């Protein structure tokens, strides 16, 4: 078992993005996401547990548990390793920290699939991906005896973590002046609610070369093409929605963005922001070309360094504000929680998060069939879409808290009509 060779602090503060998650946590809901790797053979539980024991030392920032302070929540270092659990049909039920040895993530397995579920206060998609890939790499090394050539996605479990990995990168890169802008409310698709512990999952698998060719044909990137498709799907839903509530609110998609590409940081904690791209449907029906035009030009503008930094600095300044610091946590929690539930994510219709192409080491690629990335139940949105790609395939995973799969059905039908073949898997609830 690898030891923690370096001295990590006994306690650390939550990073800026994570401060909101413990406040909005409740008995039924917590901001979570899940990353999966489906191998070519059934997963061996003992080897998986051994792999987890081996790699946990490499990720000191994951060895923390959430504690409540008087003014803010914080993270306290814990020892030991969580036990590997069997997977369930309804993943991402809120982690009961007492059952889970106080860790903020859990490793599960079922059949050929390894899944790791994270509480968002611990890390973001990129950090979670590195953890899962390192775990899978170590599992493959132990089971098949292959020596893995480590890279930027699969870390060497015996290497040392640098201090930057558990520091808050938001504080480092925030400047002096920031601004938080007003977003108008977005159209929210509706449906029949599912019970609060049920999550409906549909995965669509698409060949990456066909998708890339289609995006190139339209002169945009893959993410922009999919965002445009999603906007078109939700516009279709809005036009079919006869209720007054639809009332021509804009259709907007939230696209999280990894800030490690913009700022040189090796942090394993949260370091991402989001862009909100959309169309104003009250001005009329947008064709696919018009939507693509909006997305192609709007996204790079919103992703400029100055705009992003102003939002980071705005959020950090909120945290640094003397008045906000003085409010005790139990009052802050209720204020943040009630604002979240009243307004929350109603500024966008759905989320599309893309961790991109995973650069698998050649020794691992033959043993990995599929990857998956999914978000947990959202407070205000009915569904969300996570995207990851490897081995020539792109995996879209939609999760929803309603019974009707209308968004998924229309989205995949639009892909099929555009000449892109789709293969579907679900959790059959």
């Amino acid at each position, binding site marked *: 078992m690898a030891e923690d060779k370096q001295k990590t602090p006994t306690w650390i503060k939550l990073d800026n993005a994570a401060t909101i998650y413990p406040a909005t946590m409740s*008995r*039924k809901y917590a901001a979570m996401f899940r990353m999966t790797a489906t191998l070519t053979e059934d997963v061996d539980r003992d080897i998986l547990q051994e792999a987890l024991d081996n790699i946990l030392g490499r990720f000191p920032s994951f060895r923390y548990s959430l504690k409540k302070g008087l003014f803010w929540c914080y993270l306290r270092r814990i020892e030991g390793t969580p036990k590997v659990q*069997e*997977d*369930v*049909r*309804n993943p991402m*039920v*809120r982690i*009961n920290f007492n059952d889970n040895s106080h860790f903020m993530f859990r490793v599960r397995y*079922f*059949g050929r699939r390894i899944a790791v579920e994270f509480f968002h206060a611990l890390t973001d998609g990129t950090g979670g991906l590195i953890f899962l890939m390192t775990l899978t790499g170590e599992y493959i090394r132990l089971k098949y005896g292959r020596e893995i050539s480590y890279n930027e996605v699969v870390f060497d479990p015996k290497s040392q973590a640098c201090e930057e990995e558990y520091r808050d990168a938001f504080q480092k890169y925030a400047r002096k002046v920031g601004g938080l802008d*007003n977003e*108008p*409310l977005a159209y929210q698709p509706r449906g029949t609610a599912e019970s*609060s*512990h*049920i999550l409906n*999952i*549909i995965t*669509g698998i698409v060949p990456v070369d066909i998708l890339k060719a289609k995006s190139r044909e339209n002169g945009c990137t893959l993410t922009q093409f999919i965002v445009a498709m999603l906007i078109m799907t939700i516009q279709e839903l809005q036009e079919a929605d006869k209720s007054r*509530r639809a*009332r021509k609110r804009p259709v907007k998609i939230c696209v999280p963005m990894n800030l490690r590409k913009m700022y040189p940081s090796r942090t394993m904690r949260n370091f991402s922001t989001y862009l909100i791209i959309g169309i104003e449907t009250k001005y009329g029906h947008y064709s696919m070309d018009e939507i693509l035009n909006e997305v192609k030009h709007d996204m790079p503008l919103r992703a400029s360094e100055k705009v992003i930094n102003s939002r980071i600095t705005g959020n950090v300044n909120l945290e640094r504000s003397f008045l906000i610091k003085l409010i005790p946590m139990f009052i802050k929690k209720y204020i943040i929680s009630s*604002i979240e539930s*009243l*307004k929350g994510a109603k500024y966008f219709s759905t989320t599309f998060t893309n961790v991109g192409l995973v650069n698998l080491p050649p020794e691992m690629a033959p043993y990995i069939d599929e990857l998956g990335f999914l978000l947990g139940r959202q407070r205000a949105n009915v569904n969300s879409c996570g995207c990851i790609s490897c081995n020539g395939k792109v995996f879209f995973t939609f999760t929803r808290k309603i019974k009707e*799969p209308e968004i*998924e*059905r229309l989205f*995949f*039908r639009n892909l*099929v*009509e555009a000449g892109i*073949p*789709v*293969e*579907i*898997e*679900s*959790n*059959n609830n």
Partner: protein
Amino acid sequence: MSYCVNCGVKLKPSEDICPLCGTPVVNPNAPKETAVPAYPEKVEKIMHINFKNLSKLIVDFLLIIAAVSILCDLIMSHSLSWSRYVFFALIYLCCQVTFIINKNVYLSLAIDLLATEFLLFSFSLLSGYTRWFTSLAMPLAAAFWVYVTVCTMLFRRKGRNNMRAASICLFLISLFLIFLDILIHCYQSGAVAISWALYASLPIAIVSVIFFISSFSHRLLDEIKQRIFL
């Protein structure tokens, strides 16, 4: 491996109906293959608060307080004097517990009204004066209860217009103030008269009518929501 005839997507062997549109997968030529399911059967449950036990706990706790106060009274003054008031107040609190266990808010509100009237009635009996109860406290409590029930009905409606509901509640406040004034006059002099209530309720009524009219303009509501948000 089959395709959905409705959506045109390929379906993994683990799917026996299309998850997107519900169309059953029919493949008459393929043999009955036992496909490996993609997700396990086990469903994780979340912890639920047992409200019945919680309310029993609260009622037990209140009864303990009642017993202790009666005991103290008997020991100190050898008769039940002040503990009778405590006892009735605790019965009133026990009735409030129905809000926790009862799903139907209106039933709980009805029990609440009966409990309030009973508490005030018992206080009036114990103190020996009943006139204040019959002519002041009882109608006042009933009027206030009507106000709370109407507000609850307005705000629980799905797809309500918040501004409109608030304007009606505001208007009802002005009516309540007039009623209060008449009640006080009846109690004091036996005559029906309105004095100060007009000065209070007229501005409130005017403001509520303005809110009511402006609640029909969606553009105005959107503008207000944009400016006043947290």
